[in-house]
């Protein structure tokens, strides 16, 4: 019972994140939603770590936070460049890769 709450919470967070990624047009919000997904994973890591009495879960969580910071840095830079080029950060308009 102890673990289930965290897993349910994490699954909820993940779903909110996926929903945000798929529905939001604003690039910054998309990035924020990705952060939600990553944090859902973090919660899982820490919860399993605590449940198994193993420190490595928390260590992985720390790594994910660092990677997420870097990813957000790159993502925001891309959003900034899109804004400079198009005066808009609507990701549904950025479809130049259309085949």
């Amino acid at each position, binding site marked *: 019972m102890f673990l289930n709450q965290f897993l349910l919470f994490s699954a909820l967070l993940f779903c909110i994140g996926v929903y945000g*990624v798929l529905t939001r047009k604003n690039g910054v919000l998309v990035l924020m939603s990705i952060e939600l997904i990553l944090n859902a994973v973090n919660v899982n890591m820490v919860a399993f770590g605590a449940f198994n009495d193993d420190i490595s879960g928390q260590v992985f969580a720390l790594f994910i936070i660092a990677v997420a910071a870097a990813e957000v840095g790159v993502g925001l830079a891309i959003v900034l460049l899109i804004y400079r080029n198009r005066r808009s950060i609507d990701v549904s308009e950025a479809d*130049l890769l*259309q085949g």
Partner: protein
Amino acid sequence: MFLFATEAVETFEVSHWLFDYAFLIPAIMAGSFLITLFFGKRLGGQVHWIGVTAVSICFFLALATGFTWISQIESGGVEHAEASGLELAASSTGEFATEASGEGGEVEGKPAAVVNSLCWFDTGEAPNNNCDDLSAPKAVGIGTLIDGQSVLLLIVVTFISLLVHIFSTDYVSGDRRYTHYFAFLSLFTAAMLFMVLSSSTLQLIVGWELVGVCSFALIGHWWEEKANSDAALKAFLTNRVGDIGLLVGMSILFFAAGRTFDIQTINEAAVNGDISQGTLTVASLSLMAAVMSKSGQFVLHTWLPDAMAGPTPVSALIHAATMVVAGIYLIGRLYPVFWFGLSIPGSSINAMALIGGITVVGGGLLAFVQNDIKKVLAYSTVSQLGYMVMALGMGAWTAAMFHLFTHAIFKACLFLGAGALSHACHHSFDMKAEMGGLRKLMPKTFVTFMIATGALIGLFPLAGFWSKDEILVGAGAFPGTGGNGDYTIPLVFGLLGAALTAAYMTRVIMLVFFGEYRGHDHPHDPGPRMMIPLQVLAGLAVVAGLINMPTEWVGDTIGLKFEHWVEPGGGKVFPLISHASASPAMAILATLIGVVAIYFTYEYYRRLFAKNPRATEVTGGLRDHNKFARAGHTMLVQKYYLDHLYTDVIAAGTKGPLARAIYWFNQNVIDNVINYTGKGAVFGGQFLYRFIDQGLIDGSVNGSGLSALSSGGFLRKMQSGKIRNYATLMFGAATLLAAVFILAV
């Protein structure tokens, strides 16, 4: 000393670092060739120093090897030397041969050859690496074989080469291809040394062909004149005829001796009778073709007189003293093969003796009608080489090798002398037009030439006397000489040859040095660089014979030393041959024949010069009123029509009909084949075009393009460019994967 042995002679081991490093001698000359060729131009007129230095080093190395060989024989090899306390060669074993310590003084047996081989290549097929054992089948070695014969040749080649190098620095100075001349002298010396040291027959063939190439290049040294390049081609092509025999013979021996090229193994097989008589006969006959072409034996001798087109020092080195004895060397090296292959046991018939005998007389006769001094000497070389082959055919191996040795000395002296004469006489070799009376004008050259002539004729006690006498007694037909049988016909040929030699050489002496000078120059003795080699050679022509005087005459201490040092022990790698004993009557008879011939020739010219000092031949002589004499003379002038036979009959005869046959073959067979092939190809092409190309290949190519297009059209719809769609696909796929994992695992 005379062994009528029936069982194998004892052999003992000899060793010395000089024998192990003998490969350095040809290597130094090869290095000299490369240096001369690549850096020679910078030295200009001083380029000869490279060759002279290299060949001097080689000569001293060869001499040192020779002396070591002799001292090892005298002391009985390594173990014997240690046992008797002589410090000759350090043996690492350190075992003092206790059984030898009791003996002292006289050494029994003969030294075994020292072979040092590397693996050249392994012919495969065998389970083990055959390179571990070079006498084993299928391994081909390359290395050095040191025995009396190769040491002798080492010394002869390096010595004559050294003198020729020195002589050439003056004789060809200022030549337009001075660098190339010395480069090829070096290459020739290297190749010859490589050949005489070879331990396998394959290596011998390589050396043999290399000396042939050098001979070709040096005969055609002045190739701007058509005659010279023709002579070079003639020499090369005539030698090719013999080389086919060489290749065939060596191949037969390779298979007959159990798939090996190793010379010692082949010799052993021949001695032990492991090779059948028939095979040996065929192999030795094939090899005989090579000997005939290289060593100028009838009927393949025709290139040798023409080879005189090359510079005279080259004639001395290559076409008199060293290269032309390659054939003699080959017989000597594979003596069991030739001896058992060509002699019929119990009879005195031997193909070598016969060929040699014919060459002795045939070559000697041709020398009479030549006006070119070098050509006379060339035919004389042919005749003397005939003596050597004849001696080998009669089992007088040592006599042949000894004659090779003395002949190299006095014939080199004669050729270099002819060069000195021509150098003084308007660069002409014509005895009748440009020479005469040179006795007073060139006194030093006259003395050396006379000594060498005396040695060639075989006057006592000059070098040729001893070697020719040994060949004549070696025939065994003269009463009280023993030997290997009664070779009566070769003995007659030999004596006839002695008379001819005496007569034609007296003719040369009379035409060149007596009478009155007929040229338009001011002849004088040459400078020291040409004179000293001549004097050295003349000096040796006096004393060289003394190293093999018969023991019956001078005793064991100084007699037959050459035989003791050079001849290998019989029974293992050398046939058991009997040695003839010297006969004073034989020597006196041969000398008398020579002296009589000299007297008659001398009288002929004395009377001629008495009438007219500038005359060169008698007018209204025998030739002008005797039909047979005239026919004989014409025959000789035309060189037995052999050149006509080769160029007009054989070459032209094959040329005409062969060309017609080939034309017919071309028109009827080849053209038809080509036409039908063409038609077939057209038909096949059309078939291919229509069905395979158009139908199958084009269809599949078009089909694959079409399918790619349609599948692309379908798939491109997925590439919307919208991040959301990609994300949807990704999450959908991830969900799917997760579902698969959960359900499956």
